[in-house]
């Protein structure tokens, strides 16, 4: 008997049902009364806040009981086929409840922010319907008790992501960005499916509890099977969490409304991959090669995306590449076996990156309004049109500085502890395996670049002279309270969030221990000597400070020219501005050959050539030919018919007499 039975954990399904009901209500309103903005706001924000209340109640129940095993509620038998039996069930444990709190908490704040940000949009009700549906699916993903249930959420959040990226679908490139996100994610989802097939073939179950309980006996540690399963699962993570080589959809996903970028493409959905690795930690712990791949890809992505972030002018694009880079850190964490550190960075990143995106949203909102007043066509997201905004938007500037210091790794903010935990773990693993030292080194360099590009972003946006335009300047004001209040709450969380997993106290690690205990047998202990640990911490803090200092030292906001008069970039800077031309590379070497193959071989060759000619028209020609032969017999002469009749009668008679 699980100690959670009979507590608030029994009501965890409400956390999914409430936002889903909100989706249905807002979806109906979008069709029937799209002007009823007050009702939509109350339903949209209220349902998610109510889900957050449920989440808090469930969290308190878990904290009181602290069950050693996950508490699974089974609602009905979903897929009973032969040996396969999948139940529609939800799982409450220490890991899912952390995600439950983060998702509902951050969602509540972002829903509130959206009330201000989307206020003048004609698709207001549709927006909240999608956003509520996203929360419902995200909670299915987080709470699902088996791989297929999680997959439902996994696909559902992908759908909502597609719908919200292409929210302003009248503009072709925004609709295309949604499609790109959806298609790139499909590649990863194939990995998820194959991993499920492999798990079922070798372990005979898809249930989380059963799978992880049977894995140590049913699979050979370090063997090919478990490595393949882990790598295919990681393939799904690479798609969903925007890692090399499938990261290309995330920068384009910035076409959606900014709160969507904050919620889906920074705080929650893109971290689903990290959650999946943490959830399946025993499988990754048993496959050292797969874990090394996870850490290696994460470190490479962290550095690669950080370099692109150095030269972007669109404020949201900088944050998008920063998100990819930070997701890389999380994968380093779970890749080196420090599952709690990866989850810790997931949580703190949800706070400070949501804060950064919402702050950017507040800036864009104000910039957009200013340009709207004067009817000027200028890019409200280009940092070259900003500058000096701290004087007009003090709260946005203050809260964003908090987030910037956090992501740069300045103590004692949340980002310092979480990033240091990951890098420390990578360094510790590097003692025995030099590969992880390389991972650590990449992470250190990326940390320096992170501090630099974030310093650049803040400097160009909030400091120096204002470049918005003389006519527009009077319209630059602070955003309304519904937008600044979430910023302040998130800033507070960013400041205190580090307390979740302080070094040596390690609340989160001990909290997650019931779920990671199994893996401890396969992953060696990652303890560092006290001196080294303190040295690493001081080093990490110094690197963050150095990055910010360098940005302040060499960047000159006052020398910045508006986009139309900006000089051409050359050399490596041009390559960075063009994002290493990866999109062009994919277009040239993957998309175009694929389209050629589809058009020339599959369409013209197989479809039009083979199926239409041989299959469809061929069978018609055959039928017509046979019909022509048959019609020759039909002479219209009664005599002919009588002859056939006679022959038939004689034949029947002969058969009967035999």
């Amino acid at each position, binding site marked *: 008997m699980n100690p959670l039975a009979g507590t608030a954990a029994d009501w965890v399904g409400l956390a999914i049902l409430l936002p889903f009901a909100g989706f249905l209500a807002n979806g109906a309103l979008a069709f029937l009364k799209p002007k009823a903005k007050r009702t939509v706001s109350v339903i949209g924000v209220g349902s998610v806040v109510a889900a957050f209340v449920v989440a808090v109640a469930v969290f308190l129940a878990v904290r009181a009981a602290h069950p050693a095993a996950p508490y699974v509620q089974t609602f009905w038998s979903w897929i009973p086929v032969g040996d396969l039996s999948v139940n529609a069930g939800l799982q409450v444990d220490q890991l899912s409840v952390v995600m439950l709190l983060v998702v509902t908490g951050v969602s509540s704040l972002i829903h509130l922010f959206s009330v201000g940000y989307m206020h003048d949009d004609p698709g207001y009700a549709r927006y909240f319907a999608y956003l509520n549906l996203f929360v419902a699916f995200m909670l299915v993903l987080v709470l699902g008790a088996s791989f297929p249930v999680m997959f439902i959420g996994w696909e559902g959040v992908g759908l909502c992501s597609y719908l919200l990226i292409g929210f302003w679908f009248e503009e072709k490139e925004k609709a295309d960005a949604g499609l790109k996100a959806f298609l790139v994610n499909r590649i990863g989802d194939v990995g998820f499916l194959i991993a499920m097939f492999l798990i079922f073939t070798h372990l005979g179950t898809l249930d989380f509890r059963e799978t992880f309980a049977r894995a140590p006996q049913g699979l050979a540690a370090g063997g090919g099977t478990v490595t393949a399963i882990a790598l295919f699962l990681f393939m799904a993570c690479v798609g969903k969490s925007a890692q090399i080589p499938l990261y290309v959809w995330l920068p384009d996903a910035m076409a959606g409304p900014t709160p969507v970028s904050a919620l889906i493409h920074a705080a929650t959905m893109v971290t689903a991959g990290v959650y999946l690795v943490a959830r399946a930690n025993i499988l990754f712990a048993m496959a050292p090669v797969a874990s090394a791949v996870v850490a290696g890809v994460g470190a490479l992505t962290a550095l690669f995306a950080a370099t692109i972030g150095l030269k972007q002018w669109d404020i949201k694009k900088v944050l998008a590449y920063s998100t990819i880079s930070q997701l890389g850190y999380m994968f380093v964490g779970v890749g080196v076996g420090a599952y709690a550190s990866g989850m810790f960075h997931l949580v703190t990143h949800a706070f400070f990156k949501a804060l950064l995106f919402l702050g950017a949203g507040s800036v864009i909102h104000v910039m957009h309004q200013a340009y709207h007043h004067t009817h000027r066509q200028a890019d409200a997201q280009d940092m070259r049109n900003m500058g000096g905004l701290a004087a007009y938007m003090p709260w946005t500037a203050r809260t964003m500085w908090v987030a910037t210091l956090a992501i740069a790794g300045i103590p004692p903010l949340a980002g310092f502890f979480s990033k240091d935990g990951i890098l420390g773990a990578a360094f510790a693993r590097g003692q025995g395996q030099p590969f992880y030292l390389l991972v650590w080194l990449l992470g250190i360099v990326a940390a320096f670049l992170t501090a630099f590009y974030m310093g650049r972003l803040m400097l160009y946006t909030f400091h120096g002279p204002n470049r918005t335009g003389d006519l527009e300047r009077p319209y630059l004001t602070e955003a309304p309270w519904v937008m600044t209040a979430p910023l302040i709450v998130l800033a507070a969380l960013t400041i205190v969030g580090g307390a979740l997993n302080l070094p040596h106290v390690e609340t989160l690690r001990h909290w997650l221990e019931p779920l990671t205990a199994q893996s401890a047998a396969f992953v060696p202990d990652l303890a560092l000597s006290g001196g080294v640990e303190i040295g690493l911490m001081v080093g990490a803090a110094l690197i963050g400070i150095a990055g910010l200092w360098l940005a302040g030292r060499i960047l000159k906001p006052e020398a910045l020219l508006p986009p139309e008069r900006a000089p051409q970039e050359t050399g490596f800077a041009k390559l960075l501005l063009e994002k290493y031309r990866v999109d062009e590379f994919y277009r040239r070497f993957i998309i175009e050959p694929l389209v050629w193959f589809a058009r020339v071989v599959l369409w013209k060759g197989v479809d039009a050539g083979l199926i239409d000619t041989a299959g469809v028209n061929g069978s018609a020609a055959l039928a017509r030919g046979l019909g022509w032969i048959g019609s*020759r017999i*039909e002479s219209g002469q009664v005599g002919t018919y009588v002859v056939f009749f006679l022959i038939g009668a004689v034949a029947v008679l002969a058969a009967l007499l035999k």
Partner: protein
Amino acid sequence: MLLGPSLAVSAILFSIGVMGVLLRRNAIVILMCIELMLNAVNLTFVALSQQLGLDGQVFVFFVMTVAAAEAAVGLAIIIALYRHRDTVNLQRINLLRG
């Protein structure tokens, strides 16, 4: 008694009828040939009823009734046909040719 010759006559009559249906062109003659075939069968029934009981003789009456009805309907069709096409030559009536 005389069973063999009776059956032989009926077989000859039936064959004549069949050949008439197959070879003649005139619809009325074909109808007459069909009557001939029916009566050949009647002769068989009567001849065999001497050995197999009276059922055959009873059946002859049924056949004659049906033949009378058939002749009436057939002649009516031929008259209608003649009114439309001014001929009863079946070779020239081939609307159903494929």
